[in-house]
């Protein structure tokens, strides 16, 4: 060990950061080196002489005055907000306000001369575009005396919806929830008949009834309103049959599937089940 290294270790010893092995090596060096022993004595002497705080010979009057001045300069006290903080916050707030006002001016003001209106055209994804509800999640409400045609799917715009058509193998197949169990057959009202049959039609056509079955549905409703329940059932069954028989492949080609709509794996069984329910309560 050199003397320079030993003197660094002596300082570590004074600071209390010397390891056991280093202490042993230092002791071995000090047994042979009187110069380093002298350095160690000097440093210890310095430490001993300087250790311990000095007295503070300041009169209480002076001390009190200085503390009072510091407290008064602190203003609101230690828990208060400093002037610097207030300035920074005020600057940030004014910047946010200016940005917000600028944004408002851009998006809310009417079109200036020579500048096209931002809100003139349809906005994609805005509420102005009517959205067709999922076909089966809620059955079309039918009230007696006010027969309205089931909602038609808006015509396809022809724009490719790549994001919606992208195939995803992990995408779970969504099966629409089945209708609530109908009441017993002897307690069915004409409104129940309409609702059940139209739900069956919705299943059969994936919620997109075509023109042929719609005529039969209208006939069934008229008959149901007039109290001719057997006639209404007959018309509905014809509608279901026509709907199931129609060429599904042709229909799918005309109306591409919507990613948001439920996927019907087999449209016929729910219709058959409903008809069975209607006929025998099964």
């Amino acid at each position, binding site marked *: 060990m050199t003397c320079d290294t030993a003197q660094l270790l002596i300082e570590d010893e004074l600071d209390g950061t010397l390891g056991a092995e280093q202490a042993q090596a230092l002791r071995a060096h000090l047994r042979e080196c009187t110069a380093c022993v002298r350095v160690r004595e000097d440093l210890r*002497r310095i*430490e001993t002489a300087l250790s311990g705080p000095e007295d503070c010979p300041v009169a209480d009057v002076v001390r009190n005055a200085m503390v009072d001045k510091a407290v008064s300069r602190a203003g609101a006290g*230690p828990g208060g907000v400093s002037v610097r903080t207030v300035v920074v916050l005020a600057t940030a707030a004014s910047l946010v306000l200016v940005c917000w006002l600028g944004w408002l001016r851009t998006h809310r003001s009417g079109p200036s001369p020579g500048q096209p209106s931002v809100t003139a055209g349809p906005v994609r994804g805005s509420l102005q575009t009517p959205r067709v509800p999922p076909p089966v999640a809620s059955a079309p409400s039918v009230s007696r005396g006010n027969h309205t045609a089931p909602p038609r799917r808006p015509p396809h715009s022809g724009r490719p919806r790549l994001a919606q058509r992208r195939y995803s193998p992990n995408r779970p197949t969504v099966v629409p929830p089945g209708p609530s169990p109908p009441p017993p057959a002897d307690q069915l009202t004409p409104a129940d008949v309409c609702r059940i049959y139209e739900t069956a039609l919705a299943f059969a056509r994936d919620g997109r009834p075509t023109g042929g079955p719609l005529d039969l549905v209208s006939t069934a409703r008229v008959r149901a309103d007039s109290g001719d329940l057997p006639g209404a059932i007959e018309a509905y069954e014809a509608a279901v049959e026509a709907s199931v028989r129609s060429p599904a492949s042709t229909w799918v080609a005309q109306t591409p599937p919507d990613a948001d709509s439920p996927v019907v794996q087999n449209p016929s069984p729910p219709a058959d089940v409903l008809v069975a329910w209607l006929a025998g309560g099964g």
Partner: protein
Amino acid sequence: MSGVESVVSLRRARAHGTEALAEVLHSHYALVWRLARRVAGADSEVEDVVQDALVAVATSLGRFRGQCKLSTWIAGITVRTAVRHAERRRRYEALVAPLENDAGTTPGRLSSDDPSKVAEAKDLRAYLLACVSRLAPEQRASVCLRYLEGMALQEVAQALGVPPGTIKSRLHGARQALRGMMAPYVAESEGETP
């Protein structure tokens, strides 16, 4: 003031405002004064340093997060304030001293703490304190916190906001300088010893 007492007084200061804040400042006044006196390096500036440090502590006490002892945090503020004053004075003296030397009216710098005079008093502590005042401000601050205030190496680093290795380096330089300055005193005292 112990660590627990520091925390209690700090919470009181934050909760109760000026009265408890004054209590905190009073309880640490001696620490602030000692460090200001030794690190500033000039008696004439001690009062200014103490006042500035007290104001700094009072205004920034709300930002103390308890990463170290309150006394360590206050010591750090005081030392930084004192070093700033010392640097300002050093620049001023560098500007003014040549003019005063020309006029032949230069007073002895730190005359009251002149080591040669203090050595006559055979007081090693006073002699070494005078030597400390001649160190560089950063070394002076490290020596004051380490020896006079008895802080550990890690505490000194926390107070000054530098890595412990930097403090070690500063202390090494300060020890070498103090040992060199102490040599005449030791030689004289040993020469007088029969």
